[in-house]
């Protein structure tokens, strides 16, 4: 059988055209700084009573002025350095104008001409493809609208707790052609953000927001339209939406129809994308360098210091773990999922270097790191187990297979209800293991096999 994508290619060839997806990403990340981007209000707004974390600045009161949060700028630059971006030594904030009730000043403070970070890249380790990062810039979040009903009347409420929370926007070039690569990239981005400790990157809480611009090309050239997939709060749904969208656009193109430039959301119940807003014309945001904020100058020394603060990131860890501990890719992926887990592993290994594989196995297969908050506890437990000198897991498995194989009659009688024969089978397993098997383990595994 041909791989799936080949099947598709052939099918499309029959229609005389092969379409390749062209996908670019825009990701918004709310930073976990203590205070907001331009005022002293707390930035952690999730689950807080509405409008309790506000001040004249984030409410856009007359006369209030923004003062930039240097920590947020540092963190934005750090993310840029991770993605090999060029850093603007002198940049500024711009006002992006549009009217909306969640935007108290009538403009959002963002960056236009001179973002902090630009022209970066990310190497997809799976395919070795280079994804270009167009820019990473800093802006402020808007307030949150809540459409609800009070006393039978439909109302829209505004919660300004989120207004002015630092927001980083990362924009890629439209370099993705595979939906899976998009998800791999986004998951790795989420890991990197968490490793840096600059955001919880929690999609359900809106601290990481995904947007994919997707179109299809018949000839490798950039199409003259794009559909924005927006307001999707999980990798899974984004993937479904992209796959659906590829099919939808393909069908339209094959039937000679033009695709409308629009924003579409994902309806999980109907399993389809749906139109949210049609872009009639390009919006004019009337950008203006914000006169309230002097240009931001970044010294080489600052940038070097920020670079030094970047911890070892997942991909570097994967390569090193492979080299130093000779673990399988699957195990390594689980170990480096979070910085804390990877650190736990290495702390434990330091205590007992010879047991690295067993430590990894206990963590990955049995989640024992959750049971022992201190790595030393886990190592102690492991040493105890080793001392009893029980036969290894795989030896027990092997012995059980052998015993079941050799005693079909006993197995049949067990399955027909004679529970007491289990004792005999355990004895047979212990015999093969020369009495070294852990009785509890044997019985669990044996029962699993008999029931399986």
């Amino acid at each position, binding site marked *: 059988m041909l791989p799936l994508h080949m099947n598709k290619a052939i099918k499309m060839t029959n229609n005389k055209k092969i379409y390749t997806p062209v996908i670019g990403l825009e990701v918004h990340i709310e930073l976990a700084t203590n205070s907001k981007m331009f005022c002293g209000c707390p930035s952690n707004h999730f689950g807080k009573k509405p409008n309790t974390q506000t001040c004249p600045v984030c409410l856009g009161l007359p006369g209030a*002025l*923004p003062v930039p949060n240097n920590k947020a700028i540092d963190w934005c630059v750090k993310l840029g350095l991770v993605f090999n971006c060029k850093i603007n030594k002198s940049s500024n904030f711009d006002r992006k104008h549009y009217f909306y009730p969640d935007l108290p000043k009538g403009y959002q403070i963002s960056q236009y001409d001179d973002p902090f970070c630009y022209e970066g890249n990310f190497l997809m380790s799976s395919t070795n493809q280079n994804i270009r990062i167009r820019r990473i810039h800093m802006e402020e979040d808007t307030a949150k609208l809540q459409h609800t009903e009070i006393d039978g009347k439909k109302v829209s409420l505004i919660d300004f707790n989120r207004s002015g929370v630092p927001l980083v926007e990362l924009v890629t070039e439209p370099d993705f052609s595979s939906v899976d690569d998009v998800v791999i990239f986004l998951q790795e981005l989420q890991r990197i953000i968490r490793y840096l400790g600059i955001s919880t990157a929690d999609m359900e809480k809106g601290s990481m927001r995904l947007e994919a611009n997707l179109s299809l090309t018949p000839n490798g050239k950039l199409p003259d339209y794009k559909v924005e997939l927006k307001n999707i709060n999980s990798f899974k749904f984004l993937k479904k939406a992209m796959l659906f969208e590829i099919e939808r656009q393909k069908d339209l193109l094959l039937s000679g129809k033009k695709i409308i430039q629009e924003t579409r959301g994902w309806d999980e119940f109907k399993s389809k994308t749906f139109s949210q807003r049609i872009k009639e014309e390009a919006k004019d945001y*009337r950008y203006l360098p914000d*006169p309230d904020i002097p240009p931001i100058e970044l010294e080489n020394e600052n940038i070097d210091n920020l670079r030094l603060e970047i911890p070892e990131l997942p991909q570097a860890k994967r390569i090193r773990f492979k080299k130093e501990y000779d673990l399988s890719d699957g195990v390594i992926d689980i170990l480096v999922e979070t910085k804390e887990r990877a650190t736990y592993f290495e702390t434990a290994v330091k205590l007992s270097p010879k047991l690295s594989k067993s430590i990894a196995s206990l963590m990955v297969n049995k989640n024992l790191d959750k049971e022992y908050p201190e790595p030393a506890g886990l190592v102690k437990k492991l040493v105890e187990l080793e001392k009893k000198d029980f036969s290894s897991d795989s030896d027990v498995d092997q012995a059980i297979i052998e015993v079941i194989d050799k005693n079909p009659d006993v197995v049949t009688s067990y399955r027909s209800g004679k529970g007491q024969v289990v004792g005999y089978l355990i004895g047979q397993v212990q015999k093969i293991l020369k009495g070294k098997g852990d009785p509890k383990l044997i019985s669990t595994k044996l029962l699993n096999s008999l029931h399986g």
Partner: protein
Amino acid sequence: MKSNSKNKDLNIFVTLNPTKGKGIPIAVKDNYLTKGLRTTAASLVLGDFIPQYSATVVKKLEKNGYWVYGKTNLDAWCHGSSTETSDYGPTLNPYDTTRLSGGSSGGSAVAVATGIVDVAIGSETAGSVRGPASWCGVVGLKPTYGRVSRYGVIAMGSSLDSPGVLSKNVTLSAKILKIIAGKDPMDATSSDKEVPDYESALTGDIKGIKIGLVENYFLDEMDDEVKKVVLNTLSVFEKLGAEIVKVKTIDPKYAIGVYTVVQRSEVASNLSRYDGIRYGGKRELFGTEAKRRIMLGNFTLSEGYSDKYYKKAQKVRTLYINDFNKLFESVDVLIGPTMPNIAPKIGATKDQAMFGELADVLAEPSSISGLPAISVPCGFAHDLPVGLQIIGNKFEEGKILNVAFAYEQSNKNDK
């Protein structure tokens, strides 16, 4: 009461403080937020706006023993040089009530000129302190951009706005500047440069100081009597031992264009927060002048036009800054007239969309360059006050105050 009738006749205050506080009374322009005391910017949009916080300038004054007597009238949103654009009617000139006080800080100038208070706080974008000071015969100080915090001052042109002082004499301006100047953590554009004791620096000794007389500030279309009154000050300075040199700047008329484009762009942006959702009235309540500025500003910021207008204006602005920098290499201060004419008649701004920009032509170059300047009364033309303008280099308020003080003292002695 005397003050009350003056206020009524001349329309000086938009709101009087109903609670009598302790301390020295000071009038504050109604674009400064005063906690609990209505602040309107002389616009119906904010007709019922009671601020939740006070401007940094107001807080500093209160901390130093001043009490806000009332909120003075201004051109709505500071849009003008006459107070005629105020939604609460114009403030009249105490020297001739058929004439205007000037603006936008007209109410503050008249509050001082009538003696209701000795000091009033005003604000300048270009000429809004100096202009009315000149027309109403009081001292008007516009400090360096960034010298005084803008926090809590309703923004007009944010890259130009500067709080200022109107007072009955130079000493009071120096005293108040010392109180209100300095770095404010709430204003990123405020300077952390040390604040000198301006008052104790008023020695009146200007011997050997080099004063540049800006020849091309004496415009052809200028009132001859005003010209004469301003030129009369030269003999005073010479007597005091100052050296007068004639200098020329870039023609001030180009500053009109630069100022108009930059200011309108920033106005359009700054006024977009008044959407009537969280506070204030609907946008329909904006007056004609504000609407005009919003439209022009949005045009100059539009895609494709911002390069042609806003960015180009910023480039010319740099030329002015460089020009002044060069001049201050060879002179200590520059002098010239504050306004090319005397206070105009009521109604002068009617159908004159560019009235303010033209009237303030001699203030605009220094404003777009962020320089400090002071207007000090120097006599009368057609029985109406005339102001002498003294412009200094950045953060050299001390110097212009001392030159103004020396002039003020010797002028007093001559009388």
